[in-house]
């Protein structure tokens, strides 16, 4: 990882319809491990916002705690960021959205953040159908605390210490579907061709849009048996006394057509088979979406793509009937009933 900002000009240095160049959507240099899939997701967010001609300062990027939740620093530097507490991004976003419905809310979370400590908040923000983009950068482990299994780690998969997870994993897409999310999708961090349109769709979706992005942890998703894994490297580095050495690895990317499968080799030597969704079915059927996820899962593959879309449900503001004007823009004169009404009120209390 280098901390020197590269000198070259961005290949996409042209400006969008609003006159912003892609630089206007970038953030600080990433301090994540080299080759981390999360950086690709950040890049996809940048690209999506650029292509949608959004005003960067009209975006709020909110996260919890974890590797994934660090990423808002690395995209949309002119947007307002809030790195809150572990698992609690949904409530902060809910409050922010209640205060001002006119901003775009991008919530970034990890699998530990969402599927464990923040499971309650995740469930309820879905249930409220908050108008936001909710992206989970899902790597099945806790990176910042060095690789413990998360609740999305597959049963039998071995974490940093090589103990296979004895528990079933939580499929966040299935959960989001069950809880009534209006848009549910899954993608792979290295597949920008698929991810960017999904993020754009999520931004345009009015209501809760969920994208679970499989984003392998280059540092901790190894198994003890893998000679190419982190464990092995560390064993051989101990002599130098470097404990936090993180092997430099390049980002995994894939590109393959809809309806097909692709097996992706992970840094630890394991393989991940992705199945890209083919859109020849009714996207508005929740039941069918769950079925497809389960069917593909039984084939030892991971289904990606848009799984469900329902634009008809009203968002939180619609459901609680808030005024069209953003609540944070209402003046005192519109909020304070004033002294005159108190006479009647006091009289009723006598």
């Amino acid at each position, binding site marked *: 990882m280098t901390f020197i900002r590269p000198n070259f000009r961005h290949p996409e240095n042209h400006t969008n319809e609003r006159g912003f160049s892609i630089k206007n959507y970038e953030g600080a240099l990433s301090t994540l491990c080299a080759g981390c899939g999360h950086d690709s997701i950040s890049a996809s967010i940048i690209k999506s916002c650029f292509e949608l001609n959004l005003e960067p*300062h009209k975006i709020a990027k909110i996260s919890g705690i974890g590797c994934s939740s660090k990423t808002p620093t690395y995209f949309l530097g002119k947007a*307002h960021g809030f790195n809150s507490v572990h698992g609690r991004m949904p409530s902060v*976003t809910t409050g*922010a959205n*209640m205060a001002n419905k006119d901003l775009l809310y991008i919530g970034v979370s990890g699998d530990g953040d969402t599927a464990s400590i923040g499971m*309650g908040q995740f469930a309820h923000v879905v249930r409220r159908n908050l108008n936001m983009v909710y992206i989970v950068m899902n790597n099945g482990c806790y990176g910042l605390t060095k690789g413990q299994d998360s609740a999305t780690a597959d049963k039998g998969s071995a974490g940093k210490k090589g103990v296979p997870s004895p528990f079933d994993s939580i499929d966040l897409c299935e959960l989001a579907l069950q809880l009534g999310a209006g848009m549910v999708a899954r993608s792979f961090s290295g597949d920008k061709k698929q991810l960017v349109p999904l993020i754009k769709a999520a931004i345009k979706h009015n209501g809760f849009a969920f994208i679970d992005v499989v984003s392998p942890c280059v540092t901790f998703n190894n198994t003890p048996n893998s000679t190419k894994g982190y464990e092995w490297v560390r064993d051989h580095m101990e002599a130098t006394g470097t404990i936090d050495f993180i092997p430099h690895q390049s980002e995994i990317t894939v590109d393959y057509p809809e309806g097909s499968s692709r097996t992706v080799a992970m840094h630890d030597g394991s393989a991940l088979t992705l199945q890209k969704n083919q859109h020849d079915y009714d996207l508005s059927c929740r039941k069918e979406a769950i079925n497809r996820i389960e069917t593909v899962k039984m084939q030892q593959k991971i289904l990606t793509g848009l799984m469900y879309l329902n634009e008809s449900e009203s968002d939180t503001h619609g459901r609680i009937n808030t005024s069209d004007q953003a609540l*944070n823009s209402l003046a005192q004169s519109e909020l304070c009933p004033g002294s005159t*009404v108190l006479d009647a009120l*006091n009289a009723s209390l006598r």
Partner: protein
Amino acid sequence: MNSTNSKKLIKGTNDFVIRFANVNGSGSASANNLFSKVVFRSGVPISSKNIFPSNIQGLPTWFEVRVNEAGYLGRRGGYDFIVAVNGQTMDRDYQDLLPGGYFFYDSSKRLPNHYQRTDIQLIGIPLTTICNEHYTEPRLRQIFKNIIYVGALAYLFDMDFSVFEASIKSQFAKKAKLIEPNIKALLLGYDYAKEHFTGCCGLNIHRRDLNGDQIQMEGNDAAGLGAVYAGATVAGWYPITPSTSVIEAFEKYCHKYRVDGDGKNKFAIIQAEDELAAVGIVIGASWNGARSFTATSGPGVSLMSEFLGLAYFSEIPVVLMDIQRTGPSTGMPTRTQQSDLLAAAYASHGDTKHVLLFPSSPTECFHMTVQSFDLAEGLQTPVILMSDLDLGMNVHQCDPITWDDAQIYDRGKVLNLQQLDELPERWGRYLDVDGDGIPYRTIPGTHSEKGAFFTRGSSHDEYAAYTEDGEVYAEGMQRLLIKWNTAKNMVPRAEISGNVSEMGVLYFGTSAYATEEALDTLRQQNDLDAIRVKAFPFGPEVDEFVKEHKQVFVIEQNRDGQMKTMIINELSTNPEKLISILNIDGMPITAQFLIDSIGQYLSPKTMQAVKQETAS
């Protein structure tokens, strides 16, 4: 019927305590409140306390009413008259009655043989029998039984019946067909008592004109109204006794005063999944420029602690109302205490301190709520209103709610678009430009180029950038202390009475009712100064008061003297000079308890000893 001549009965006009013993869920509350309302409307000062179980139905509940012409509204202790209509507690009620008191019971069933007290007056009225004669529906029989005993009391206390009639009429103004049956029930009791108990009761409630323009209100109702007047638009909350009615009141008043021309709400109330989410919503909304608040109780404060630390360190306004109850854990959820002081003042891990306000009446709940928002935004920090169950859930007689239309919300240091445009230098979210420890903030979305910042709980420099530089962290933490010192001059001043003695009394919150009554008695024999603390951090006047007195009695409704701990912690006073006077039974503190507790130190002999001891 006992003879009234064979014993010494309690007698008096407009000065006694009556307790109603009922069953939770039996509909007694409205009858008891009717009684209370009529006394108030008769111009006689009154205070009432609901002593209720933490379940919905079937367990005992008591309603304690103190009628007091002198205007003392604290709990007095002791019962002169008991309405015992709960079989479950009848034995206890019978024993709790003061000698010379009156025991009112449902005589449809004979009293058990062991009821042998000869020092009390029995008043048996066959409530069940009367109900069964007049009503066929079981529900009506139950409800009107309560109204019938109120009718009987109207006669026994020689009250003006027309006030009852007027109260019933106004209560059921929108359900006119209920007026007549209620008045009929009142008369059933009134007439029975008149026929059978002429002249047996020495307690009277006679019309006075002592209540002026005062109102009757619950503290939580006032706090909810305060949030409306303060311009709060977002409330995140999670139901917990005794705070729930704050949000219910906010909602009620919002629907009344805050709906726009299209029928849409100029407010958002989110019932969250838990307290963590409730305060998270507040933080998100406040960060985004809306006035936002939550209400909870001790267990909720525990759950909100991490977030409160985040708000403190990232400097986001939060208004939190802590309606305290008896802890720890779930303790006695329907009993009152002032035992969250330390938990609230220093909530969260790391170095944190939060601003606390201590209201003593519903009127203060209203004004301090408004003030909380100004302080939270002015200081960019959490502000916690420390109410309690007694204040929050009981109806208190208090001054009317007033509002000065010239008052402008203090939104604190917020840079708008124009100010950002004109900014000559780079704006720093955590720059102490004015030297008061309070930086300038921006509201997301304000400006296209300037003003965006990254809010984080992790260590940050003056420009909100992430840092692990220890010195930068330390500077930030020291600045927060400068802000804390600024807060000392922004919070409401303590109220001081007397400047005559070396002995002082320090009190706060709901203890005020009992303390002020006790002081009137104690001052008849002794010189005593007093200070009612209204906020934390303590203003300079609190520091001075403690410094200037050789002995200070610190009155609290908790076990460990939490206020005393805070004084020692913050004012570096000699702990020896602070004497804790503590009440922890979950019931509102009484004047008598204070007179007894403080009095023992104040007897001339002890007083002398104290003086010598502190002088040496």
